[in-house]
């Protein structure tokens, strides 16, 4: 997970922005409780989105409580309170993803980065074990995804769709776990599939130059399109459009304004920032 699932702050109501922060802080707090102070650093916007989606689906958010931020004791913040285990689940998902990402980094990066990764890896192994034990389904799905991804990248035939398939399928299956009936399961899978596909492809678009330099796999480098930015925009738009169609078939009540904001403003503006290499907005800086 890479942190592309953001809100567009300028389009949020103040109270929506406050509750978005409260979800972020609530998740951060839970991560500290479940794992360690250090894992909080692996917290991403993507996992915040996941936690908020879960909380909205099962309508488990009961309110907000006040407290102090662990990183900045002078700052008072609000924490979202939930009856279900969605913060724990999102924390586990974040830890599991971070663990595999580290493992992946170890395989293809330079000497110094390798050294740094080796230093933190033992800690992450321990936390990962704990997370995997608590949420075995998440662990299986992410592990399968990593394996399928490695296979896809080795195959010279792999095109754009096939290279995005593992991530897309993983996120689709992760969201489908939350379904209350078969119909909703299909909608959630389709929604997760296209969000996952979008995440994979936007990350590929973001890393294109780096991957070209290091001769790493990148689906866009295999394409012979003339106008690369137009092509990327078309492909990414289509994923968002299809995710949005599925999103419209789900019923959200809590956090609906924030989720709508992400679907309609946050993701597209992030996409433009990445594809057209725009400067990061004020929006992205701080929660």
């Amino acid at each position: 997970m890479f942190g592309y699932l953001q809100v567009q702050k300028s389009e949020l109501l103040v109270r929506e922005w406050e509750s978005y922060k409260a979800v972020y802080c609530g998740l951060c707090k839970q991560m500290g409780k479940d794992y360690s102070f250090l894992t909080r650093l692996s917290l991403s916007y993507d996992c915040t989105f996941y936690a908020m989606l879960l909380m909205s689906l099962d309508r488990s958010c009961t309110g907000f409580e006040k407290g102090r931020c662990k990183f900045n004791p002078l700052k008072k913040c609000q924490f979202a309170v939930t009856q279900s285990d969605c913060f724990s689940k999102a924390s586990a998902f974040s830890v599991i993803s971070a663990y595999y990402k580290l493992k992946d980094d170890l395989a293809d990066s330079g000497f110094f980065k390798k050294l740094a990764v080796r230093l933190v890896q033992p800690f992450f192994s321990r936390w990962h074990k704990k997370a995997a034990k608590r949420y075995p389904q998440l662990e299986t799905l992410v592990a399968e995804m990593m394996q399928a991804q490695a296979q896809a990248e080795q195959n010279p035939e792999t095109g754009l769709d096939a290279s995005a398939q593992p991530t897309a399928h993983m996120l689709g299956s992760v969201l489908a776990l939350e379904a209350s009936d078969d119909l909703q399961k299909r909608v959630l899978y389709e929604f997760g599939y296209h969000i996952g596909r979008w995440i994979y492809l936007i990350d590929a678009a973001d890393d294109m130059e780096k991957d070209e330099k290091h001769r790493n796999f990148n689906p866009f480098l295999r394409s012979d399109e003339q106008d690369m930015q137009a092509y990327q925009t078309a492909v990414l738009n289509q994923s968002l459009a299809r995710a949005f169609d599925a999103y419209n078939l789900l019923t959200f009540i809590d956090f609906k304004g924030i989720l709508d904001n992400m679907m309609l403003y946050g993701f597209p503006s992030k996409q433009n920032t990445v594809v057209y290499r725009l400067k990061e907005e004020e929006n992205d800086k701080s929660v």
Partner: protein
Amino acid sequence: MTNPYEVLGVSPSASDEEIKKAYRELAKKYHPDNYVGSPLADVAEQKMKEVNEAYDEINRMRQKGKGTGSTSGSTGGGYYSNGSTSQFYSVRVYIQRNMIQEAEQILDSTPEGNRTAEWYYLKGMCAFRKGWSDQATSYFTTACNMDPNNQEYRAALNNMQGQQNFNYGGYNTGNTSYGNASGCSCCDICSAMICADCMCSCCRSGC
């Protein structure tokens, strides 16, 4: 049965106009045109049906004695109408029933010489159902190039292009409307009328 007001997302005390507006918005959202070829087409159709039923139910409750409230205008289904004459009839049935693997098996076992425009179209449908939009686009393009007069293939390709140009993100287009339909719809006119109506009634109460 579920509360029809909940289905439309309005309060039971909402005015007729508010209900009509909520209904129109939902009907626009679940319209089958938004889900052509999508694996979720049947879900959207189901939702559309619920909305239609809820709207009818509310109308019936409100207009008791005044007449009927039948306003349903569902237009679901009918996308595979020319299936029976097709040489890939079974493939179409499989796709319709979301059995993509079976459909692809038949398609892939078709010898190279028999790969007609329809074959490319159906390959595109399979790819689209799996979420492989990029491949779907190129299959539909091939189908259209082979048989430029076929409405079905053209519609599928147009659908792809529509999604790719989705009026998303304002920076490069300078557009601030992000909905998936564009222009001034009847809903806009309707809401303008409501506004005008409100102003009228304000004046009246002031008198």
